[in-house]
């Protein structure tokens, strides 16, 4: 009897621990907004990334509710229906009605999730009316950006010094998420990315834009985005691509349209000058 009481206590502990985990997970939403700790998916800075975030939170909450009901019933049973309490086991072992019920109800819930998810997905696949086209090529281990219909193109690679990676210097705040040349993009314009690779698979991922797609040698993938707010957005290669897979970050600098035009003109000029120099 005594042993069972101790066990009851440990099961309660277990229940409490799981509850705390759940609560932490739920609070993380507010916490992330406060910029205190990054515990949740970023809401991002595009209409679609916010929709994705909404879907993420919707399904998370549905899972939490189902979890509370199922685990609640289970722990109630664990606490109440134990031999040490002198209960006699029931003998029921079948109910077509129940089986039918818990097949249909989840099915209906799933439809409730599938509808908004499909709507968002359809929007994500709409690349029409893009105004700016940028080709991204993955290399082991850096990215190349080409602004199509202009002369501007450059490579963008990790700028964190090796001494920081090998712990000889203090790591700066943007450790492993800084590059030598940022991808400059305008806000409020639809930008289409064409994605490919020169060697192995890579994946171009910027969480704040909710964009992730594989870069595949010999194939061109497509995605598009409208950024709502200026700022610096950092991302990473997400598909294992060899030894330095963890060391090929992405940094986007999103600016007002006017600033972008100026940047592009300057970059064009610099490029033309470079080309002239080489040809000389």
């Amino acid at each position, binding site marked *: 009897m005594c042993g069972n009481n101790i066990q009851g206590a440990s099961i309660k502990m277990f229940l409490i621990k799981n509850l705390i985990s759940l609560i932490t997970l739920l609070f993380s939403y507010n916490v992330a907004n406060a910029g205190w700790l*990054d515990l949740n998916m970023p809401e991002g800075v595009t209409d679609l990334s916010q929709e994705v975030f909404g879907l993420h939170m919707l399904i998370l909450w549905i899972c939490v509710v189902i979890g509370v009901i199922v685990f609640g019933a289970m722990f109630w049973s664990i606490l109440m*229906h134990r031999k*040490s309490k002198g209960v006699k086991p029931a003998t029921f072992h079948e109910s077509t009605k129940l089986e039918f019920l818990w097949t249909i109800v989840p099915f209906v819930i799933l439809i409730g999730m599938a509808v908004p998810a499909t709507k968002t997905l359809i929007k994500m696949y709409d690349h029409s009316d893009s105004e700016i086209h940028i080709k991204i090529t993955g290399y082991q281990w850096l990215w190349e950006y080409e602004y199509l219909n202009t002369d501007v193109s450059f490579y963008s690679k990790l700028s964190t010094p090796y001494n920081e*990676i090998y712990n000889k210097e203090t790591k700066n705040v943007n450790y492993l998420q800084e590059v030598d040349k940022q991808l400059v993009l305008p806000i409020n314009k639809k930008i289409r990315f064409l994605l490919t690779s020169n060697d192995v698979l890579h994946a171009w991922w910027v969480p704040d834009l909710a964009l*992730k797609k594989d870069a595949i*040698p010999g194939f061109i993938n497509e995605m598009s985005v409208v950024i709502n707010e200026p700022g610096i957005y950092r991302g990473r290669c*997400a598909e294992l691509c060899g030894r330095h897979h*963890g060391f090929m970050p992405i940094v986007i600098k999103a600016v007002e349209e006017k600033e972008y035009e100026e940047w592009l003109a300057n970059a064009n000029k610099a490029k033309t000058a470079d080309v002239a120099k080489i040809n000389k």
Partner: protein
Amino acid sequence: MSSVVKDAHHDEHPSGIMRWITTTNHKDIGTLYLWFAMIMFFIGGLMALVIRSELFQPGLQFVDPQFFNSMTTMHALVMIFGVVMPAFTGLANWMIPIMIGGPDMALPRMNNWSFWIMPFAFSMLLSTLWMDGGAPAGGWTLYPPLSLQTGDAFPFLIFAIHFMGLSSIMGAINIVATILNMRAPGMTLMKMPLFVWTWLITAFLLIAVMPVLAGGVTMLLTDKFFGTSFFNAAGGGDPVMFQHIFWFFGHPEVYILILPSFGVVSAIIPTFARKPLFGYSSMVYATASIAFLSFIVWAHHMFTVGMPLAGEVFFMFATMLIAVPTGVKVFNWVTTMWKGAMTFETPMLFAIGFIVMFTIGGFSGLMLAITPADFQYHDTYFVVAHFHYVLVPGSIFAIMAACYFWLPKWTGNMYPETLGKIHFWLSTFFVNLTFFPMHFVGLAGMPRRIPDYSLQFADYNMIASIGAFGFGFAQLIFLYIIIKTIKGGSKATDQVWEGAEGLEWTLSSPPPYHSFNTPPVIK
């Protein structure tokens, strides 16, 4: 050899090492499989600890990134093919003939061969750690073109996979043949214990998909050495086709790793609830539905490769559907517990731990099914958290539950109960400490398979690493308990557990070397 038939000496077998090398006895072979899995569990665990050591802090401290990638790759291959699959095959070997009232497996010599391939396959795989260019480092998924950059290890890797596949297929054929032919009279299919049912379905999955993997890796081999271009776009091939082939194998494979767990848990919960399993037939149908669905959801592993919209939508819907039969199973287990008279010996604790944490893994799986959200989750630590929740407190906990449940039957001795409970609580605490924070870092943007990370992920990685070491050391208790129980302990009764039902509990503990030479009577 000798044509002398010694009826009176059925138990006669060579002693020492030759007993194990030449054995065709299902109990011996089951034991071999289980010990093999145990050894591999510690080898794969050491690899995990190398990974967690390097990830304890940002920066590169202990290993080269290339070796780190080898560790993630080898850890996965060892744990999947060397631990979970052989452990379940071992349980199948030990229990299926007994549970159906048969004398042995249907094909005992092939049984011996299936097992003895495994040590060779894994010696070959592990030997690649010392080869030029290092062990395979392209991920266990072997995606080309990266996997084709593997050095000398490459053909050994492919050959090892072929061997493992051969072993699994033979094992699966044996299980199907045994279940369909060796049942005692009166043991109809719908009277079989669920462990037998789930293994029957698993065996069909194995026979269906292992050849697909073999085909895929052979195409990799010819791409590398014989100038073909199956997966090389420059030669007219398609790197994404490999992913389709791989996951057509890979998704049923993940159910191969979990379905027998369902069988184990369906045996343990009713025993300790002292109440029959709720919804036996719906459990069988749910298992079959999961198996069927496993063939039409593979591309949810590849939502970011750039499939057309229709493909994404189809695979999203099909994947979400899996929640229905899986939910039925969980509801049935909970209802089995409902109004039972439960006690909480170690096997029951592991089974309950399984249900709770497998369900958490199921929830994150459902989240991953939502394609637009998956674009954010894909290839992050959120995925790592998801599949470790279904594999460690899922499959591994079920295997441990099975070991505690049947160990008294196998050895004739009871294991030390308090130590078993300590093992459970330590494992549960540390497994959550390891894997729960991975959800957070994944959502916050940490990709998987990286040896170093930016500073915002530091805290949770440190917690996960501490958890991993705790979990690893807790498993030494498991090893100690098993050795101690084999060596001695209080004698187990034939029934072992008060609420135990089924043919295995009618045999003595330990059972005779050959059991059910005359079929038992099935009520």
